[in-house]
């Protein structure tokens, strides 16, 4: 037993026991708060895996959706997700990185139109995803672009949705490149664009790649805007091109969850495990890229 110095009481004042109890109580409350989040995460993962375990297997990849739950699988949704994400990446990466290069390296920030673009990107990042769905319904599926309910329409909408995230992440990666690299290149007589394209951009690629992968993993999980642009949920073929009808994993999951039969809920859980595995692979890739190629200056 350790004896506490008597002076403790006199120095701190008040009743130390009561005070210490309050300190401990506060710390316990904080730990409980932290616990709620972590327990909820664990409960979610465990319950999904336990519920879906029965149907998680080869058949889930091999079979198409079916009105009979025991015959149904998520093949078309899996390939649909692959198509949509690949097309989204092809659209969003060049545009997002170009925009980030312009805003971070080339734009005179005192011009009103550059500030307008910046504020705008901040605001767009917080617009609810269903609003992008409305935009897609009005302009992409019908209206001016009239693409119909196809892979390309979904990719356009998801690109617009994740573009702010891609731009913000790419700008951070560019900002992390030290100024001395730019100064060195400019001092050797490179033009501003040569400096950016041959020195700054290559140095920032690992950071940009990490940000892009994380943004795309957000796009993979989106269901609401794709419901609006009409991802079908009963599709017995894989997409064959950008102009092909499609469904994606989150929309397929939503469809199965909203059916009354319990067997479809099991199927939904198994498909959720599939979706979470894809996200795990993507996040793992992002971490790997950062550790393997990322530089610390």
């Amino acid at each position, binding site marked *: 037993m350790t004896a506490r110095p008597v002076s403790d009481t006199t120095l701190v004042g008040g009743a130390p026991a009561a005070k210490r109890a309050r300190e401990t109580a506060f710390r316990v409350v904080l730990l409980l708060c*932290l616990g709620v989040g972590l327990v909820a995460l664990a409960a979610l993962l465990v319950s999904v895996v336990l519920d879906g375990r029965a149907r998680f297997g080869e058949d889930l990849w091999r079979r198409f959706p079916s009105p009979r739950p025991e015959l149904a699988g998520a093949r078309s949704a899996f390939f649909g997700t692959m198509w949509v994400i690949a097309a989204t990446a092809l659209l969003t990466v060049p545009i997002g990185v170009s925009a980030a290069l312009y805003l971070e390296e080339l734009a005179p920030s005192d011009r009103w139109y550059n500030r307008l673009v910046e504020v705008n990107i901040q605001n767009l990042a917080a617009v*609810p995803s269903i609003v992008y769905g409305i935009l897609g319904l009005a*302009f992409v599926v019908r209206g001016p672009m009239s693409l119909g309910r196809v892979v390309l329409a979904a990719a356009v909408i998801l690109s617009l949705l994740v573009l702010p995230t891609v731009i913000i992440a790419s700008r951070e990666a560019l900002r992390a490149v030290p100024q001395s690299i730019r100064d060195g290149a400019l001092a050797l007589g490179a033009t501003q664009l040569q400096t950016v394209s041959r020195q700054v951009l290559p140095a920032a690629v690992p950071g940009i790649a990490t940000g892009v992968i994380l943004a795309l993993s957000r796009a993979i999980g989106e269901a609401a805007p794709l419901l609006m642009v009409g991802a079908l949920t009963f599709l017995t073929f894989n997409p064959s091109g950008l102009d092909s009808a499609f469904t994606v994993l989150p929309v397929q999951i939503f469809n199965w969850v909203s059916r009354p039969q319990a067997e479809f809920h099991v199927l939904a859980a198994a498909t959720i495990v599939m979706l979470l595995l894809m996200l795990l692979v993507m996040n793992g890739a992002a971490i790997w890229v950062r550790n393997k190629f990322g530089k610390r200056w």
Partner: protein
Amino acid sequence: MTAVVPSGLPTRGSLGARHPRYGERAVVFGLFLCAAISVLTTMAIVLALVPPTIDFFGKVSIGEFLTGTKWSPLFANPRFGVLPLVTGTMVTTACALVVCVPVGLGSAIYLSEYARTHTRHVIKPALELLAGIPTVVYGYFALEVVGPIVQRLWPFGDRPGTFSALSAGLVMGVMIIPTVGSLSEDAMEAVPGGLREGAYALGSTRRQVAARVVVPAALSGIVASFVLAISRAVGETMIVLIAAGGQPNLAFNPGEAMQTMTAFIGAAGIGDQPTGSTGYKTIFAVGSLLFVATFVMNLVSIRIVRRFREIYE
């Protein structure tokens, strides 16, 4: 002017480029266009929302829309009072805030003021995983796991059914924990160490430093994170679409099934309304309401950070 130029040296007076580089200017302009796409997106959203909304209000009076208490736009005898959707949104948002405000703030205080560095490096990413989980997955969780628990533990009278605003709202709150947690923690980390040390020197305990010095000093960032949390809860679609039930319901009892603005838009969107029908236009009218509400909250949140930030140093 005839300046004497030593022979053999170039006569150029400036260090600028010898030829204008049109190619470079074209590339820079191309990059600018990419950045401008974001502005075009915002304009497109407004252009997509406004004309059908004006059309809609040509058929339905604004008074009926904003004060009517019955919402059944897709039925044979349509009623266009948006209040049930608004109260549904408010109730689910309130349930979400009950979870994410205390939990997010408490986690942020612990991570910023109590946790050791390596504990923080493990727990913070784990908490942020919550933000990376797709919303359909939360919807499933709300319906299959939280719903039955809520039914079993419901303390007052009539038990909630399978669908309730409460289970959807609670799970939505879990989803938003990282939003509140990360932003509040950033704000607390930005409070200079000198303030803490001063408080300790005056005999404060850790709790007093956290609750009476750090939190007040970081209040602008914390409040901004709350506003952003409200905006995210109002805009969330899939969880409420799956777990809150589909009936527009003018009620304040979170145990009842309700429909939110976002859930209506989602449900009507699935229904494939023919272009130009009133049902199609209601999507845009409700969408405008939603867009304006979240837009204002985002601006408020950005403003709060700018206006009330305590500048140290």
